């Protein structure tokens, strides 16, 4: 059995919604638990609005849990420097956001931040980005190409964990399949730990990982 890589214990999170000028508290996650082993891939399904994105944002501390603890390598994420935590725990958003500039410049952000010597060409090859796109304006790419740039940009940080927030849901079927294959290959080659959110049960099954369902603020294993 691999060692535990990521562990969520008793994690709760509420948000305040504005309804007619008053703030109404809604509990999104309540006493949620999750254990992910090193190199494991888990998928999380759930209806939209159930808190899947919220959950991922807690893991790399883009947002703060109200209570409970999240441990990475046995250490509470609050004890990490937030920047180092986010380097270790990469995130791919549902809607890809590229930065102004060329694809090259996008891929180089991590290197600039962390002083890594990455091979951009290898990175592009791993993420199926054609080399002739490297100097293209990132904002003019198709959504599928942008998503590949975002994945490559996250990988340039040399993360241990990759959080994937419905990485294929904004794409057409062909691009979605490409990204899915790409992610599954990356996991095989690099042994990345992945938490993959999807609304597509078939996709979840194809990943071969443990499947969870987010319901009433908690995770239930999906045996279907």
């Amino acid at each position: 059995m691999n060692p535990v890589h990521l562990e969520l214990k008793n994690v709760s999170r509420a948000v305040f919604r504005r309804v007619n000028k008053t703030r109404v508290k809604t509990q999104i996650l309540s006493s949620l638990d999750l254990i992910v082993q090193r190199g494991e891939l888990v998928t999380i399904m759930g209806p939209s609005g159930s808190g899947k994105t919220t959950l991922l944002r807690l893991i790399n501390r883009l947002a703060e849990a109200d209570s409970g603890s999240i441990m990475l390598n046995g250490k509470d994420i609050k004890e990490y420097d937030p920047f180092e935590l986010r380097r270790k725990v990469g995130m791919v958003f549902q809607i890809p956001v590229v930065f102004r500039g060329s694809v090259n410049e996008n891929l180089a952000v991590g290197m600039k931040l962390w002083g890594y010597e990455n091979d951009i060409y290898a990175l592009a090859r791993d993420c199926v980005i054609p080399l002739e796109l490297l100097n293209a304006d990132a904002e003019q790419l198709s959504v599928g190409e942008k998503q590949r740039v975002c994945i490559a940009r996250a990988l340039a940080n040399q993360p241990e964990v990759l959080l994937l927030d419905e990485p294929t849901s904004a794409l057409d079927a062909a691009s979605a399949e490409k990204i899915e294959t790409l992610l599954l290959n990356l996991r095989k080659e690099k042994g990345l730990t992945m938490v993959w959110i999807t609304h597509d049960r078939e996709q979840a099954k194809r990943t071969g990982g443990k499947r969870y369902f987010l319901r009433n603020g908690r995770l239930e294993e999906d045996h279907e």
Partner: protein
Amino acid sequence: MNELIALALTVILVMLAAAYARRFGIGKEISLSGTRSIVQILILASIILVLFKLPLYWSLIVLLTMVAIAGHTTYTRSGKLDKVFPAAIFSIASASLLMLVPFFLFGIFPLEPQYLIPTGSILIGNTMNVSSLAIDRYRGEIKNRRNEVEAYLALGAGPKVAASACLKQGILSALIPSIDNMKNLGLVWIPGVMTGMLLAGASPFTAASIQIAIFTSIFAADLMASNLLLHYSTSSFFTGAAQLREDLE
């Protein structure tokens, strides 16, 4: 005698404007702000009159009060973010002061309240306007480009890097009116200082030289104040753990 006629005309104009503006539902506002401006400027005149006779440090106190009020105005524009009040005071004060010094150091103006107060207030007023525009736009950009800012944060970038494109946009859009003014100087409008000096009987060349000196100083102060302010405000948009705050108005 002339001044009484001018004041009487002003009062009549304010009344007429207010009466006319009633149809837009802003009659009361106009009469109120019109009255306010008349009273304030008369008070200012009396203060200056007194200041002319007082030692110089009194003028400095008056300028500092102006800075405090200007800082508060800009702070309000920021959506009352904490730390922006001191940052606004600091940036408005240092930029204005820095651009004020050469005028007196090189003897363009004698160091007397009569010169110090008007030049100081022009600089303070302008840096306040530009700072307010800049912080308002900065906040708007950060709010609207949340996804981009958070994409940077998610890569482990700090707030400075994550918000740098928004900061640039904030400064750029705040300075656009000043840049346009500079381009059109003398074409579309004769600016205030020159108008005043001409009315007071100065030679057009003297008036123009002083005007352009003040004008460029204003621009430099605007640039400096808005840069300083946005620079020092960035952390107010983020939490201690480098999270983009959720409660940005």
